[in-house]
């Protein structure tokens, strides 16, 4: 029981990050019917951007009071989000808009996306240390337990709590934004029927830009959360990016709540299944099988429910 809960919390922590990244894939897919394969590098930029900015304020070996930690977290999330948003915005301008203007085929977008992905990851490699391990200053003891789950010995660490709570806040915020504001309605309008949305007075180009900015902000913030938890490098985006993409497909690509559910579910399943029967002996197959489990789940869902869990949107009329 204790192990089960510990792995569940670990899964939710990983899953929250996947969900935040997955939202970027699904939002862009919604308005452009395009997988932005460079989104994993938006996530990476968020980590490096916040690393630079947070590094200006805190240094190694300091131990900060709780309110200072809170401030640093805010600063990290904000700077990760800003850098992610800026990179995503630029990406759309440089790599996609010119192709859209010329009515290029889908394959051209895909190649452009992959090119940008390599470019950004190699640029980060050049600017920072290629392939080597960067780390945020250790300004507080992240692994200290904040509370024990009643009725078991399972604990939630500080960083786990921070990751889950901040991800949930951002997702609730996005959900409200999309369903309850004019900006949200313009995004949904363009996603459902762009030419008709234009007839209502919606500027398609602007809406697409804003969609990239929102997705980029969430991905960049996830980059900070990931960076502050683990060591990271210029190729850090690859595995979480592929998994978040899988999570978006799992939930039903183009569906916002689907991406949230898909991300959390993938995180939980990939951590619980390999550690079964959760008795502390490492499980029958072991944690090194995490990635395999994640992709087996993806394949199974796609075999039995090709549009994903909430994927009715794919079936919509063009």
């Amino acid at each position, binding site marked *: 029981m204790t192990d089960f809960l510990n792995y569940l919390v670990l899964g939710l922590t990983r899953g929250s990050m996947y969900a935040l990244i997955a939202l970027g894939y699904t939002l862009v897919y919604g308005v452009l019917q395009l997988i932005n394969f460079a989104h994993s590098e938006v996530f990476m930029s968020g980590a490096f951007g916040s690393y630079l900015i947070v590094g200006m304020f805190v240094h190694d070996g300091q131990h900060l009071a709780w309110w200072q930690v809170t401030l640093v977290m805010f600063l990290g999330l904000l700077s990760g989000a800003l850098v992610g948003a800026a990179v995503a915005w630029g990406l759309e301008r440089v790599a996609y808009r010119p192709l859209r203007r010329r009515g290029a085929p889908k394959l051209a977008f895909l190649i452009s996306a992959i090119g940008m992905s390599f470019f950004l990851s190699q640029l980060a490699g050049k600017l920072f240390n290629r392939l080597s391990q960067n780390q945020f200053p250790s300004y507080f003891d992240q692994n200290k337990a904040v509370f024990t789950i009643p009725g078991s010995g399972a604990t939630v660490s500080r960083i786990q709590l921070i990751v889950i709570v901040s991800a949930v806040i951002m997702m609730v915020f996005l959900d409200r934004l999309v369903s309850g504001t*004019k900006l949200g*309605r313009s995004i*949904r309008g363009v996603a*459902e029927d762009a030419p008709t949305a*234009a*007839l*209502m*007075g*919606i500027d398609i180009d602007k809406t697409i830009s804003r969609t990239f900015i929102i997705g980029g902000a969430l991905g960049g913030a996830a980059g900070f959360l990931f960076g502050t938890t683990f060591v990271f490098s210029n190729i850090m985006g690859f595995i979480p990016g592929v998994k978040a993409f899988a999570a978006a497909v799992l939930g039903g690509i183009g569906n916002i709540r689907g991406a949230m559910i898909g991300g959390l579910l993938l995180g939980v399943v990939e951590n619980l299944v390999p550690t079964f029967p959760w008795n502390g002996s490492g499980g029958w197959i072991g944690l090194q099988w995490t990635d395999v489990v994640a992709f087996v789940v993806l394949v199974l869902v796609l075999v039995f429910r090709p549009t994903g869990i909430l994927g009715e949107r794919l079936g919509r009329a063009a």
Partner: protein
Amino acid sequence: MSLLEVDDIEVRYGAIRALKGVTFDVNEGEVVALLGANGAGKTTTQKTVSGMLRPSLGEIRFDGQRIDGIPAHQLIHLGICHVPEGRRVFPMMTVAENLEMGAFRFKKPDSTIHDRVIELFPRLGERYKQFAGTLSGGEQQMLAIGRALMGKPRLLLLDEPSMGLAPLIIKQIFDIVKEINEQGVTVLLVEQNAAQALALADRGYVLETGEIVLSGTGQELLTDDRIRAAYLGEEIAS
């Protein structure tokens, strides 16, 4: 000066010339019908007026102001509201949200107009919280017209509102178009259903392969032999 003046426009899809010098006008307060067979260029004409397409030659003026080349999302601010072919409601939004989309150009939807739309189409009130994709064809057409009204049109562009609907529903819709026009909205109506469109219209134009081949008042066209043979006869036969 007419409210809408379309002056010798040419519209191309790549190498295809869909409109080859089309000229017509619509006066304030009129219903003008644009008739023609499938592929004649009716939809292309409306899309060009609403800014979805830009003409390669010619001019379009609205209220005396050049509007050709202004994109659709800006043109709507002049009060040109287009109900596109095939209705194009937002299927994953509710009826209420679709109506709100129609008023997107305003900070907030006008509640007086909203209430008038529901009065005009009581069915929309009954289906208010339902997803638009689950409505019948007639209801979707009503929603598409109601949505356009939310944008406070001066000129309403209707593209084949009768397409695929039962005769009874078509009559309802034409009655409502008449009512909308009587409330002061100018209407440019595209139809293949010539008899009903001409009964409603003050004037009409007939398009054939991208050119205007006939024009006149609704009555004149209704009794014109060529129209009777080409369009009304076709209707009786089919």
